[in-house]
């Protein structure tokens, strides 16, 4: 199941899918990130960053797994993760 299908399954309307964008497995942009929930060392080996994103009016946890993950923030609630992204999945609270 792709990211957009997963978002739709979680209840987000299709027109809201642009709030999370995954490009080429190297860049993930979440425009509605409410925070960083957890993180592990991803400098040399595969690690993860778990983001809390606001999705269809509810907070969801999104796990981004990969190697050499770098997080950047362009301001409030805008987050960009670059690196070798291997998997993106949603967790239940």
């Amino acid at each position, binding site marked *: 199941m792709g990211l957009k299908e997963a978002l739709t399954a979680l209840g987000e309307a299709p027109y809201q899918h642009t709030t999370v964008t995954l490009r080429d497995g190297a860049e993930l942009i979440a425009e509605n*990130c*409410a*925070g*960083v*929930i*957890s*993180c*592990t*060392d*991803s*400098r040399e080996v595969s*690690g993860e*960053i*778990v983001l*809390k994103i606001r999705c269809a009016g509810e907070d969801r946890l999104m796990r981004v797994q990969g190697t050499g*993950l*770098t*997080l*950047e*923030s*362009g*301001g*409030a*609630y805008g*987050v*960009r993760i670059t690196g070798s992204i291997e998997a993106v999945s949603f967790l239940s609270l």
Partner: protein
Amino acid sequence: MKENKSGLRFGSVEFSGYGAFPERFATELINCGVELRRVRFGDGTISGAVSPADYWETARTARRCGLRIRAGKRRGLYFTALRYSRRAGLYVGFLAFVMLTALSGSRIQDIEIVSSGTVTAAQRSQIMSILGECGLSEGSSARRLENSTTAAERRILLEIPETAWVDVTCVGFRLEAAVEMGTPAPEMLDADAPCNLVASRAAAVVSHVVRDGVLVTETGSGVPEGGLLVSGTVTDAAGNVILKHASAEVIGEYTETREFFVPYKETLRLPEGETAEYRWLVYGDDEYPLFFGVAAMEDSVYSEQTEAVRLFGKETPLKIRTGRFTGYVSRNVTRSADDCLAELSRQQAAFEENFYAGQEVYSCEKTAVPEQDGIRLRCVYTLRGNIAKEQEILLSQPGSQGAE
């Protein structure tokens, strides 16, 4: 995402830290709107970069989250300026530069005499001396010069008779005296010097009005160029010879032939190209350009107009001068026979206006001859005009009454 697009134009501060809650630290910074760059999470560690303005917020957040962070490399204009901000020499140099500029701008540093004609060395020396006497010399103040420049202009006009126009202007620290010399008066005989009137060109005399002297060539006679028309040598009733200044108007009739040619195809250079406008603010004799660089454009025609600056409907002493350069462009023109004739007619009218204004065009016999590449117009003019020209009577020996 490049740094110059990310709001970190004024530099960045790298940080690294360790502690219990790096994710909470990141969350709080995101919620505060802090721009985070290159944030990497390690084994209980975090590293990244923020802008200098956000660093103190970052440090406070780290303390709240139980993180110990440390600033690393500092990059950008802010830190470069900070590094040099304690160098007193820079401030002294800047102040010296400002003072020198202000001082040099308030004093006349250079005086230049410009003219489109010729100003002799003696005239230059005299102009410089007049400027000096009016308080306009190198080193004198360049402020409030209006009275001095006006006085200098008047004195130059009065004391150098050859001058026809003078404008003394101070632009910045340069004083410029624009001096134009008048055209020398043509040689003319004194009104009482004895002279004859001779024909300036071969013609047939059609009328005359003799005011003084003896008419030699009667109406209807032909006269060659230089032929005597009115003699200044007059004999009185007692038989004495008197030399007079002959005065008369002798109208002669003569012909001239002119040819005009207009081709069917021609490349004309017309001022219809791109235009460039430059503006100057004018205050009294001074003018200040409202642009950078030099007001010039190659191969163009120049025109200008000056408008007064109005404030609430009232004229101010300021004026705006607008100069417009219009570039020439080459255009290929193809004319029909009628177009050629119209152009020939225009050329002929312009010629008559320019060259025959002082004469009467009695008749004009026109012949248009079509040629392979255009039309040629041949005009045989019959003109009437005053052909009398003064010629001084030269006496061969002092006291003698022989006339030339």
